[in-house]
C-alpha cells in the first residue's frame, strides 16, 4: 500500500490540478431522457471518489470509540461496570507491569493455526473455569464487539466487568479491559506452529488497575489468574483431542507502581459489584411489593 493512498493526517487536503478540492468545480452532469443511469467511473470527478480503505489490517481492529457500550448480550448477564467505561492499556494502570504467557503444545492435533483460533473463538466461554461467565455478543468475537464478564470472587461474590475485542484476525484475537477491571491491559490469544506441532497461547500484558487490585494480586490473585488461563488452555487442548501440558512464563516488565493512577480505584468493579450485591435484598423486596 503506497502512502499516496492514505488519507492525509497533517490536516492538509490533497491538491487536484494545483487546486484544493473545494476550489475545483465538478463538471455539471445533466440527467435527461436517454441519459445513462450509471456514470462511468472514469467520468466521476477525482475529488468525490472516497479514499480507499487503507491498511491491510484495517478490518482487524476495533473502530475508534470513546466509551464502551454493550449490545445484544444475554439476559442472564449482570451487566454492570461496562457501559460508559473507557478501555485502559497498561499505560493507564497502577501496579507493576507483567507479561504472562501461557502456552500449550497441541500434540497429536493436526489443526492449522487458523482452525485452532476458529475453534477457540467459537467456544471461548466454554473453556473457562466453572463459575466464571463470558457473555459475548451474538455476533461472536469480532473487532469492536463488547462482552460482559461475570467472574467468581472469594465469598461467593460476582464481579461484573467487560472486555472490548480490540483486534481479531484468523490467527489471533485480543481482548482489552475497561476501567474498573482487575487489570489494565490486554490478552492476546494466538496459535502458531512450532517444531511441526500447533501451539496455542494466551499472553497477558497488564498492570493492576488500582491499589486494591494490586494488593489482591499479591495475595493470591496472580496465582488464581495463572490457574484460570492454564485451565482455559487445557480445556482448549482437550477439545482439540490433545493432552498437552500448559507452560507458564511470567516476566515483570516494570517494577514501578504508577501512583498517579491510584485514583483508578473510583471505577473499581469489585467494590461496585459488592455494593450492587448488597442491594439485592432491597431490589427483591421492591419487586415483590411493587404493584
Amino acid at each position, binding site marked *: 500500500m503506497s502512502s499516496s493512498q*492514505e*488519507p492525509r493526517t497533517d490536516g492538509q487536503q490533497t491538491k487536484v490540478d494545483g487546486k484544493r478540492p473545494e476550489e475545483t468545480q465538478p463538471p455539471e452532469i445533466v440527467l435527461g431522457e436517454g441519459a445513462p443511469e450509471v456514470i462511468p467511473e472514469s467520468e466521476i470527478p477525482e475529488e468525490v471518489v472516497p479514499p480507499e480503505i487503507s491498511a491491510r489490517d484495517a478490518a482487524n481492529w476495533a473502530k475508534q470509540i470513546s466509551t464502551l457500550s454493550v449490545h445484544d448480550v444475554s439476559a442472564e448477564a449482570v451487566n454492570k461496570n461496562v457501559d460508559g467505561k473507557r478501555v485502559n*492499556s497498561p*499505560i493507564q494502570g497502577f501496579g507493576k507491569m507483567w507479561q504472562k504467557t501461557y502456552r500449550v503444545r497441541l500434540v497429536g492435533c493436526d489443526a492449522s493455526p487458523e482452525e485452532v483460533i476458529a475453534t477457540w473463538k467459537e467456544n471461548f466461554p466454554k473453556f473457562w473455569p466453572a463459575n466464571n461467565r463470558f457473555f459475548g455478543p451474538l455476533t461472536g468475537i469480532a473487532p469492536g464487539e463488547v462482552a460482559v464478564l461475570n467472574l467468581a470472587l472469594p465469598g461467593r461474590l460476582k464481579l461484573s466487568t467487560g472486555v472490548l475485542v*480490540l483486534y481479531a484476525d484468523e490467527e*489471533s484475537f485480543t481482548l482489552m479491559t475497561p476501567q474498573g477491571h482487575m487489570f489494565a491491559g490486554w490478552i492476546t490469544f*494466538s496459535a502458531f506452529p512450532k517444531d511441526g506441532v500447533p501451539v496455542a497461547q494466551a*499472553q497477558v500484558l497488564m498492570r493492576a488497575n488500582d491499589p486494591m487490585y494490586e494488593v489482591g494480586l499479591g495475595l493470591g490473585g496472580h496465582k488464581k489468574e495463572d490457574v484460570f488461563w492454564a485451565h482455559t488452555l487445557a480445556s482448549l487442548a482437550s477439545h482439540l483431542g490433545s493432552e498437552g501440558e500448559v507452560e507458564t512464563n511470567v516476566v515483570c*516488565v*516494570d517494577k514501578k507502581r504508577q501512583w498517579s493512577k491510584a485514583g483508578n480505584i473510583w471505577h473499581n468493579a469489585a467494590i461496585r459489584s459488592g455494593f450492587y450485591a448488597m442491594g439485592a435484598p432491597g431490589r427483591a423486596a421492591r419487586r415483590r411489593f411493587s404493584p
Partner: protein
Amino acid sequence: MAQRTLEMQVRKPHEGSAIVDVKGDITGASEDILMDAYNQAEGARAIILNFEGLDYMNSGGIGLLVTLLVRAKRQHQKIFAFGLTEHYRQIFELTRLDDAIGIYATEADAVAAVNS
C-alpha cells in the same frame, strides 16, 4: 500466510534524539528488530519513531510498543512518533498509546517538540 518483514534504520541527525525509520510490518515477532533499533538509539534523550513506512501492525505489535515505552521510561527517555496514517493514529488513540507517545504529523514537528 504471507511473510511479514520489518526493517528499522536508526538516524541521529540531531543532537539528543534518534529517529527510527520503520518500514514493513510490526507484529509480536518483531521484538528482536525493535529492541535492536532501540539499543542503537542508546544515549538519545528522545526516540522518534517514523511510521511513514508502516504497512501492517497487529495487537502483538502494539504490545511491543508498550514494552519499548517502559524501557525508554526507565532510561528517562521520551518517545515521539510521526508519519502515522489516520488508521494507525486511531489505533494509537484507541489503545491509549497517545497518552504516552507524542504524535506529530511530520519529522520537523516531532524534532521541534523534542527541542521545545
